[in-house]
Each structure stands twice: as structure tokens, then as C-alpha cells.
């Protein structure tokens, strides 16, 4: 492999995760950090650390010139972008390559194409992947929007072509709302993204979010099965599982096969995720988007398949052919990941930066905690609230839920409020145990069931 040293252009738990994978492969690590992150765990673990600017992300982790300058100064062979920040910025990928280094991810062109919602939808359709009924591309204007809604039926979602992360989305229930919202959505998209382009999709009311982990080396393409990520709050995932239980075997085969077809269609290189909506009443699934990076929830896939996806990213980016073929990849047992955030679930999820006074992590077979924390660490207020991810693996889903409950009780993070009580309550909820949830389940559950369940949890604990 050609990669001997890497610069990690990220922070928090994913930076720690990347450093561990690099060390396992004998790769030298250089960690960039903002002025607010000088004492973060990744800085302590890396072979070298470079301060790239002030706390505001746009002045440090989002500053392409500063990151490239640090990479050049440290003489690394490669740059790993993690997730978020510059990970899906095609111009950054190009800038890394132009500076003579390897970008650990797909090409800038692939990132741009798959990042454009309209182009991605078109490429999915070309690969034979079902897409949500809606526009074939950008909707030219209100007349076309009206005609389209007449064929798909309401409710309809209006989305910004250049949007992402749940931003720039409006749901309209009838023709009057469509006529009111369409021009506003276009103006907002223009203001937010510099591109007023819109597209439209039918709303699948009771859907699950299911996604497939794909991997390619530009020539060979495989999947590492799927994940179920329906438990979301404000369109942010809070709990993920692998595999997507209750998915019929025939549907799983078609779903994963379609994701590989999409990877092949674009000659994909690196780790990626193809996201779908799955309607469990009809068995239909529909393409939503491709994430051209490693994802927060990748550990559940690693737990059921036994592969280290971040190490695989390094190998493929270094020019090594994919080390596995589809037949080598088997799923075994069940895994669940809980995202532990510095937020108070009893106070409307108020963010809670502060100093960690005690940290005690559960250990044992099938238990993993990916984190940025150590005792005495002060969480800065400038970045997202993810502190770590507790991942549990067991033979069956029931055994996994039971093990998760014990692991959550054994996880002690003191000094700041966290979302651990939320996860404990979810782990004990009968509907969660029966898998009776969908993408809008959690917000409703938080309003109606959380307080009572959490109260019981505290008595037990």
C-alpha cells in the first residue's frame, strides 16, 4: 500500500476512530485541530498535531486552504476527511489531489454528481434503482409542479436540488399549499444554497429508513448489507441497527443488489451509503440519496460482518484492489448503536457542553464504545453534541436489546447531562422491541411515552 502517513481533517470520535485504524495499518497520523480542540483525544493519540485556526468551523475544519497547507507542511501522503465538514466537498477532494496527495474517498467528480440530488436520482434510475415517484429532474416552474402533483398525488415534498441534511424541504398537502410554497421554496433555496432549483417527490407516509453500505475500488463493487435507521429526531439519527430486521430475504437481496448496481454505474471508489425509504406494508423501497463518505453508524455493519471498514478505506485509496468479494461477506447476529449526545433529554434536548468528571465504560464481548471522551476533558460548545457511540452485538435482536440495557446501565458519564436515559428508555420500550417504528415514531414517542418510561428507568437504576 502506498499510504504511509495521513492527515485527519476532522475532530471528535471519528478522528479517534480513523487514528486507530491508521495505527493498526502502521500509518503515521497527523491530526489538525482548531484552537478550541488543542486537548481533544485525537490530538493526544496522533503522532503529530497542527493548529489550523480559530474555533468557528469555517475558520478551521471547513477552511480548505488551511487544511491543505497543514497537509503539505506535514508531508503526508493522504487526507482522511471523516464525516461532515469537508467530507462531501468535491472541491476539497480535488484540492487534495492537486496538492499531490491521496483523498481517502471518491473522486471530486463523483462527490459532486452524487451530491446533486437531481443528478443522483437520475443515475439511480439509470442503474435500475427504484426512485420515489416524482420529478425526473428539476421542476421548471409552477405549471410543471401542478401537473406532476396530479400524477403522484398528495402529500408531496418540495426539495432544494442543492439541499442536504434535511434542510430546504417542504411538505404540501394540496394544490393551494403547493401554489403558495413552491415560489417560496425556490427563493429560500437560492438564498441558502445559491441555487433556486427544486425537485419534487411523493411523500411515503409510513416509511422506514433503510440504507446499504457499499464499497468499491473503481473496478469491483460489494455491499456490506443494510442498516435500519428509522429512529430519528429532527431528521438526525439517534439509534441504528444492522441488519434491518423484519426485512424479507427477497427484499434484502433486491435492495442490496440495487445499491451495488448504483456503485457499478458510477465506478465508485471507497466507502459509501445508499439510503432508501422502505414501505413495510407494500415491501417497496425507494432511493433517497448517496452519502459519499464513512458514516457515523458504520460500526453496526462492522459488528455483524467482522470487517474494519475504515482500514478498508485506507487500502482501497492506496491503490489496493478490494480485499473481499461479495461471497466473503456474511452477516452474523444483530447489532445496535446508540448515539450518546451531550444533551439533556429531560430539558428539550438542551445542549450541554462541560467537563467530564467521571467516565466508566462497559467492556466485554460484543460491546464497543467509540468516543472522544476522557476524564477531565472539557467539551467545547462550538461543534455538534456527539460524545460517543455505544455499539452492542449479540446472536439475536432480543439478546442484543437485553445486552444493550445492561451496557447502558454500566456506562457512566458524569459532569454533563447526556442522552443515555433516552436510550435506556428506548431499550425497554415494547414497540421498539417489536420493531414497530418508522421515521416519525421517535418524536411522537418523546412527546407521549418518554417521561413515564424514563421515570421507571430511574427507579430501577
Amino acid at each position, binding site marked *: 500500500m502506498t499510504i504511509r502517513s495521513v492527515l485527519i481533517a476532522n475532530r471528535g470520535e471519528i478522528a479517534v476512530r480513523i487514528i486507530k485504524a491508521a495505527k493498526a495499518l502502521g500509518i503515521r497520523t497527523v491530526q489538525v485541530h482548531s484552537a478550541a480542540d488543542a486537548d481533544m483525544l485525537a490530538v493526544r493519540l496522533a503522532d503529530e498535531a497542527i493548529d489550523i485556526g480559530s*474555533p468557528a468551523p469555517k475558520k478551521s475544519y471547513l477552511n480548505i486552504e488551511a487544511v491543505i497547507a497543514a497537509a503539505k507542511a506535514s508531508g503526508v501522503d493522504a487526507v482522511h476527511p471523516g464525516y461532515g465538514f469537508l467530507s462531501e466537498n468535491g472541491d476539497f477532494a480535488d484540492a487534495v489531489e492537486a496538492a499531490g496527495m491521496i483523498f481517502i474517498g471518491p473522486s471530486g467528480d463523483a462527490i459532486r454528481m452524487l451530491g446533486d440530488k437531481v443528478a443522483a436520482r437520475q443515475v439511480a434510475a439509470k442503474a435500475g434503482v427504484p426512485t420515489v415517484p416524482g420529478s425526473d429532474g428539476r421542476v421548471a416552474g409552477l405549471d410543471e409542479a401542478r401537473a406532476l402533483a396530479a400524477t403522484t398525488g398528495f402529500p408531496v415534498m418540495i426539495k432544494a436540488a442543492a439541499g442536504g441534511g434535511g434542510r430546504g424541504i417542504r411538505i404540501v398537502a394540496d394544490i393551494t399549499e403547493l401554489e403558495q410554497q413552491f415560489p417560496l421554496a425556490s427563493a429560500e433555496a437560492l438564498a441558502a444554497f445559491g441555487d433556486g432549483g427544486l425537485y419534487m417527490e411523493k411523500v411515503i407516509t409510513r416509511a422506514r429508513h433503510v440504507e446499504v453500505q457499499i464499497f468499491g475500488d473503481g473496478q469491483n463493487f460489494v455491499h456490506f448489507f443494510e442498516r435500519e435507521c428509522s429512529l430519528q429526531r429532527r431528521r438526525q439519527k439517534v439509534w441504528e441497527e444492522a441488519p434491518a430486521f423484519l426485512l424479507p430475504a427477497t427484499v434484502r437481496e433486491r435492495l442490496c443488489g440495487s445499491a451495488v448496481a448504483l456503485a457499478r454505474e458510477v465506478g465508485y471508489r471507497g466507502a459509501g451509503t445508499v439510503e432508501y425509504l422502505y414501505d413495510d406494508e407494500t415491501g417497496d423501497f425507494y432511493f433517497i440519496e448517496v452519502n459519499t463518505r464513512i458514516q457515523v453508524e458504520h460500526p453496526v455493519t462492522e459488528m455483524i460482518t467482522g470487517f474494519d471498514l475504515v482500514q478498508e478505506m485506507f487500502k482501497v485509496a492506496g491503490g489496493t484492489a478490494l480485499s473481499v468479494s461479495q461471497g466473503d461477506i456474511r452477516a452474523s447476529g444483530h447489532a445496535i448503536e446508540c448515539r450518546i449526545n451531550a444533551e439533556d433529554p429531560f430539558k428539550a434536548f438542551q445542549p450541554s457542553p462541560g467537563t467530564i468528571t467521571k467516565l466508566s465504560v462497559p467492556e466485554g464481548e460484543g460491546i464497543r464504545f467509540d468516543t472522544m471522551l476522557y476524564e477531565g476533558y472539557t467539551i467545547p*460548545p462550538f461543534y455538534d453534541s456527539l460524545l460517543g457511540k455505544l455499539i452492542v452485538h449479540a446472536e439475536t435482536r432480543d439478546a442484543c436489546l437485553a445486552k444493550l440495557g445492561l451496557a447502558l446501565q454500566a456506562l457512566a458519564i458524569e459532569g454533563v447531562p447526556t442522552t443515555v436515559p433516552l436510550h435506556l428508555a428506548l431499550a425497554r420500550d415494547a414497540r421498539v422491541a417489536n420493531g414497530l417504528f418508522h421515521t416519525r415514531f421517535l418524536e411522537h414517542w418523546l412527546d407521549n411515552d418518554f417521561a413515564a418510561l424514563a421515570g421507571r428507568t430511574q427507579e430501577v437504576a
Partner: protein
Amino acid sequence: MSKLEIKSPLPGTFYRASSPDVPVFKADGDAVSATDTIGLIEVMKTFQQIPAGLDGKNIKFLVDNEEPVMAGQVIAEVEE
């Protein structure tokens, strides 16, 4: 005439307006009442409104737009 201090209840990034293309909540020299919003603090990617918390006149900001602040840091002073 004594000076009163308006302190940040949270650590984070201070913003004087709700977006870059709208006027600031309060300009130097303005009078404030307790419920007036004087700015926003971005903490872990969420935005919280910061009320003046007291009545006063001739506000003077000690923190610039988009500057990091600590909990308890004085954001502005007003006259009684």
C-alpha cells in the same frame, strides 16, 4: 450612574443578528428592557436567544459578532 452587566448564560458563539443580512437586535446606544433579545448564542449547532434580563439604556457591546464567549462572560453593559 452605575453600569449593569449582561452576562452570557452559556458558552458558545455570539451573534448580534438572526442572520447576516438583517439588522442587529440592538445597536450600541440603544435602550433595552428585560425581555428584549440582544443576541443569539450558538451552542453545539443550536441557537438560543439571549434576553437582556434587565432594563437599561445606552447599551455597549463588549463582544463582537461571531466571537466565542464563555458562560458568565459579560456580553454588554448598560446604564441604569
